[in-house]
């Protein structure tokens, strides 16, 4: 591709750039693997969160208040 003149050329720059990556390929593998593992861990942690089923602000604030009371009483 020659010099960029319009948006299409600009997008072409991205496509050619990603295609032409040599040292970037192992990096892309790392990034993808990392995102998958991190998402799995985040999803696992989120599934354990006792607040996940609380949808309204009232439910959430009630839960927080009760938790604070518990900590204060311990």
């Amino acid at each position, binding site marked *: 591709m*020659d010099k*960029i003149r319009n948006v299409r050329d600009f997008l072409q720059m991205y496509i050619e750039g990603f295609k032409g990556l040599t*040292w970037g390929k192992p*990096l892309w593998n790392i*990034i993808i693997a990392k995102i998958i593992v*991190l998402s799995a*861990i985040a999803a696992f*942690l989120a599934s354990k969160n006792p*607040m996940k089923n609380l949808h309204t602000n009232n439910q959430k604030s009630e839960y927080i208040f009760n*938790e604070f009371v518990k900590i204060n009483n311990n």
Partner: protein
Amino acid sequence: MEQNLIDLSRAQFALTAMFHWLFVPLTLGLGLIVAIMETLYVKGKGEKWKTTTRFWMKIFGINFAVGVASGIILEFEFGTNWAKYSWFVGDIFGVPLAIEGIVAFFMEATFIAVMFFGWDKVSKRFHLAATWLTLLGATLSAVWILVANAWMQNPVGIGEFNVDLVRTELSSFWAVISPLAIVKFLHTVISSWMLAAAVVIGIASFYLLKGREKTFALDSIRVAVKVGIAGVIAAIITGDMSGNLVAKTQPMKLAAMESLYDGHNNAGLVALAVLNPDKKFDDGKDPFLFNVSFPNMLSFLATRNSNGFVPGINDVLKGGYIGPDGAQTISVNEKIALGKDASLALKEYKNAATEDEKTKARNAFRKNEKYFGYSFFKSAEETIPPVGLVFYAFRIMVALGFLFLILFITVEYFLHKKRFEKARLLQKICLLSIPFAYIASQAGWIVAEVGRQPWAIQDILPVKAAVTNIGATSVILTFCFFLVLFSVLLVAEVNIIRKAIRTGPEENPQNTNQ
């Protein structure tokens, strides 16, 4: 809340934050060095600067790619491991994080593509602008993260506590950008220049030791050493400003940084010391087995007066001294009692049956709401951070900072005398100094974050009230996953960078080996 879960959640967040912090300072500092190198190329200082820029841009890219997404997991952790924290202060804390994600990160992500793929496809000047804008995006990203972090150290801009929703709410966005936030940003970003300078000088020294890429290596060192010297000097100045603000906003942290148990006037700054491991806060024993101090320096740092009074841990606990606002401080035990009153008033408010009862309870809460966070403590002793860790981390950070200043000045002197190329011992020291730059950087985070303990948000919310009750086993399990993943990523990054270094810069007619 079981102590085990609190400590594990702390450890998990520390692991992810410290891992992420391995990449951020190099991105910030190397971005600046690369931008300067490319400016030299565009200004017509020779094609060699294009080769030099492209090599360091490659290192920047590897570091950026491996580091990307580990910051996002930190933000997820606020929702998963620190859900109560997020609820309690999300209205305030979420604002800078949202700005960071929407504005700064997108700006960085947009221009980084032009920076990598745009060579010979956009004009030289446009490419240079993209490089500087990538740096600006990364720096703006750091601004908002550090504004959020500074707010945890010095919570300002808070309106009345929302008793219905049990959360704090933002009263003024601009107040959140406090003097501490500005100084924290400057100190953190500028110290990143030092780290990147140490990395560039170290890798370039490796080439000189191997007898490769001499022109490239010397050119790289010439730019990096100037950035390094400017960075360390500015970090010393902003570090002093930061210390002064910590004295005003977090006296307990400053006392822990100095292992100062009993405050006094004309307090000295401890230069070198070994702590007494048996020291308890109230046993009257000497906190040091051995120490060397700079007389009056701590008083000057904290109060800008060499005779000034610096409160120690016991003074903060017992109160009775005149605080920076000119008022007499009260003891932590009194704060706990007032906090318990606020907590009781909140309970009464929640259980109130009539509007009158609600108003009465709300007014009772308002009287002591600023001490509400203290209601979670049983004893004043709980508010003391881990003194040993904070004390030694502070000394490591400062000592390494000054050693890097000496190293950079020595390198500059040898370059000036045209003797660096042959100074093999100095080159070896430069190469071996790379990990120490990371140690200094991590030590800085330890001082800032461990020094704030046991608070998640200073004087507002302790860590034990902020953590989500997700079970210790889940946290152990995910901690182990993180540890394995981060170790693998680190090994992968080091290997890819080693490969890139071994390959060296692209064809350069001026390289002496060609």
